[in-house]
């Protein structure tokens, strides 16, 4: 290695380090961290993801073995064969020669590859079957609609007067199947909960269905995985898998209309909510606000995040979000609302009471 090359490689290393040091300002956010959520294909929490992980292991082992074989064969040949250069006369004995030995090896390799591929196809089909056979009795029925850049969830179990809307966070009972009916309000989105199941696209003009079952309690994080515009990166979905009793209690709570404000400030907040621009897009069941353009806020205080996972749900974050949503989610549909500080505090106090 020449000194020039040495210097050059050192320069490269230094440049790489400089790149690593390159740092620009982060978001200025409130101190509270976002809720922990498992977000990993390899960490399965339900049977659908489990079947897929089994298939993954089959593929991984087989593909690693094939890769290793090919690489080792290549390296072996590269070491074994004699060297030549441009002046070495080419071996013309091979022209139109039968070459039985390489032909045998190549044929065997091709047959082995074909058999391996067929095995993988069979494994894939068996996994498809297993995925389609999730028992669905007693399933929780949820209609999820994708919007730019948030999720509506409408729980459908019970009669029409027992249905309710929530947004961005699903609560499901552990051990019960969940059927999610997927629709889109605008562009193509895709719902993906890696710990629980594969993904499914939400396509306008079509309806699709995703079934899963969470077998362990926990918080599972998903994200929209079909590019849907400016804030595709911040369209998170959280699923809270809880024991059956807790789920039932949650459902009962969600079916109630909004809690009445407790103190005068929250009262004023409710008045403001209904009269300024909030009510043009948001609904709070039991009040005059009934619009469907933004997330349903009837029980917003019971959620862990705001703005589809962009912010944690604390009063400071809520106030900051209302004052200027474009700072946290530039391009999102919610406009900045010009409010005085007292008005903003009143609205935040009201929303904080909507458990």
């Amino acid at each position: 290695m020449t000194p020039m090359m040495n210097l050059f490689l050192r320069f490269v290393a230094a440049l790489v380090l400089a790149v690593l040091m390159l740092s620009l300002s982060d978001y200025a956010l409130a101190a509270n961290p976002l809720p922990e959520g498992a977000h990993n294909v390899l960490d399965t929490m339900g049977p659908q993801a489990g079947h897929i992980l089994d298939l993954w292991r089959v593929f991984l082992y087989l593909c690693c073995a094939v890769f290793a074989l090919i690489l080792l064969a290549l390296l072996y040949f590269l070491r074994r064969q004699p060297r030549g250069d441009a002046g070495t006369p080419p071996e013309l004995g091979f022209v139109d020669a039968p070459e039985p030995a390489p032909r045998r090896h190549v044929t065997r390799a091709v047959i082995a590859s074909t058999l391996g591929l067929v095995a993988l196809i069979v494994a894939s089909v068996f996994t498809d079957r297993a995925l389609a056979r999730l028992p669905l009795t007693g399933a929780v029925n949820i209609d999820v609609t994708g919007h730019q850049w948030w999720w509506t969830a409408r729980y459908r179990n019970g009669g029409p007067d027992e249905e309710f809307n929530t947004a961005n966070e699903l609560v499901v009972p552990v051990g019960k199947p969940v059927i999610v009916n997927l629709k889109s309000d605008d562009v193509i989105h895709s719902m993906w909960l890696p710990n629980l199941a594969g993904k499914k696209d939400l396509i306008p003009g079509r309806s699709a269905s995703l079934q899963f079952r969470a077998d362990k309690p926990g918080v599972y994080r998903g994200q929209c995985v079909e590019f849907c515009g400016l804030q595709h990166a911040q369209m998170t979905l959280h699923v809270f898998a809880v024991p059956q009793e807790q789920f039932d209690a949650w459902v009962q709570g969600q079916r109630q209309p909004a809690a009445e404000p407790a103190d005068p400030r929250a009262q004023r907040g409710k008045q403001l909510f209904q009269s300024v621009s909030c009510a043009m897009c948001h609904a709070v069941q039991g009040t005059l606000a009934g619009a469907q353009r933004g997330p349903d806020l009837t029980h917003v205080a019971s959620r862990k995040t705001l703005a589809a996972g962009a912010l944690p749900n604390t009063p400071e974050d809520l106030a900051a979000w209302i004052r200027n949503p474009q700072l946290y989610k530039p391009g999102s549909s919610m406009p900045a609302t010009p409010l005085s500080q007292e008005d903003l505090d009143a609205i935040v106090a009201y929303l904080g009471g909507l458990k």
Partner: protein
Amino acid sequence: MSRRGPLGEEPARGADAPQLKDGEGPGSRAALALEQTWADPPGFFGWFCVVNHKTIAKRFIITCLVFFALAGLMAAVMRMQLARPGNNLVGPDMYNQLFSMHGTTMMFLFAVPVMQAVAIYLLPLMLGTRSVAFPRMNAYGWWLFLFGGIMLFTAFAVNSGPDAGWFAYVPLSGPDYSPGKRVDFWAQMITFTELSSLVAAIVIITTIFKFRAPGMTLNRLPLFAWAMLVTSFMVLFAMPAVMLASSALIMDRLIGTHFYNPAEGGDVLLWQHLFWFFGHPEVYLIFIPGLGFLSAIIPTFARRPIFGYTAMVLSLITTAFLAFGLWVHHMFATNVPELGKSFFTAASMLIAIPTAIQIFCWLATLATGRLNFKTPLLYVLAFFFVLVLGGLTGLMLAAVPLDLQVHDTYFVVAHLHYVLIGGAVFPLFGAFYYWFPKMTGRMMSEALGKLSFWLMFIGFNVAFFPMHMLGLHGMPRRVYTYQAGLGWDGLNLLATAGAVTLALGIFVSLVNAIRSRLAGAPAPADPWGGGTLEWATPSPPPIASFHRIPIVYGRDPMWQPPPAGAPAFVAGLSAQTREQLVTSVLDALPDHRMSFPTPSPWPFLAALATTVLFIGSIFTPWAVVWGSVPVAVTLIAWFWPRMRETAQELALEKQP
């Protein structure tokens, strides 16, 4: 001596036939006349009239490499943005434009065109002829490509770059969710590049079928030519699908049709089917020429003919057919019927078989040869690591259940870069190092070549391997930022470091190329001891390529000279007009002589007129009507027969 016309064309003659014929060796009067006859027209205006395939191809290659560099810079900015969570180097709007431009430029303005450009340079040399078929249309194709690329980048420079991704799914790219003209520029760029690709494909197919050296039967056709033949047929079938899709999108956006509007009877998935029917063969359009490069380079550096020629040819053809039956694997997450998806799983897995056959044949060639470890071979060996790994992750993606977990995540980003860079870019760099001496007459530096190779190889793997894990850990594609604490931070930083190293490696190759071009050691005609006909010409080849058209007696004509007593050359083509020998398709028997077009400004002017039509139709449908007029005028002027040329051709004819 006789005087040339204003565009450098040779002087008009009366009805007398030009008397001088080719067939004498270098330095002879015929050879000098040939050089004059085929010369590029000089001067500023002459530059616009060139139709020589080598000149056009060199311009074409450089244009593609400029686009490659620009798209690479965009990737560098994206990696900087993603190096840390919550970064705000670029905002969501600019990031969306960056990844869309990166993908669009790489796929439409670099990957397929550069392969066609290299083929346009090499094929006549490899096939033993002086020109590609349809040289003026070939020039038109390049001009159109250039203008389309300039249009796209100009749009990007004024904030009108596409921002809906390189495959622009509707409804996001439709009239309701992509306001302005950004997606219109993208859709019209597709029209430019697909027309250019179709033109190049027609040129390549006709050249390979009808303009070969006598004796070069299809059974003796170089594997690179087979690869380009197969690729070009695929182009003919695949490009119309995307032109149809993008035209329907333009119509939806401009004049309010409802092809993709479910509310009025259209279908969102129509776009996906049409696009991916093109899009999957597109990646094979990129991959198969890479396979052709491997088949050209490995025999030379293993000092033996390729093993299993017939199997290799049949594998190429099988791959091309199967490639058209895979497209739904891009749509596994949609609600197309599950049983149908299984068929595409099977097809997507089975296409690995012909590729496996090719890989095993190359391994057999290497296993029985004498190896010469120069830079071209190194790049080719990288293919066996990178492409094979990418192909294996491709098998994973072919299985519906696995795809449903990793689709649209960084796992797919890793896979696609492994197959595209491993299957096309590394072989392309190998091809550059291999044929650079032939094209420029200078040798490249081996030391810099090896440095570049290792930087690229290491940098590439450090950049893209962690992305497999990022995908499995839940990171979606096309996100301009991500939250801290999800386990993605370190892997992203590592990927950025790798990307920088890869960029450095590419830069070293650029430096190598420039230095060598200016001051490299002069290259002999055959620096690597290759077997195919291009190595018979001097480096760089004279403008008429072959002063005497050779006769071919084997698959590697340089290694298999004519048997004793057999003729080595044909003679009798005119040295004073652009005459070419046309041979039969299967056995390359000489069929007739054909007079070839001289340099002309009309391809350039027709491309300009077409550009005005295409760009105008972004803004108003009337451009299609009024823009047709200049196009018609230029085409008519182009094809109008010239009395002088007709007289010359008639004078050269002989009764059978």
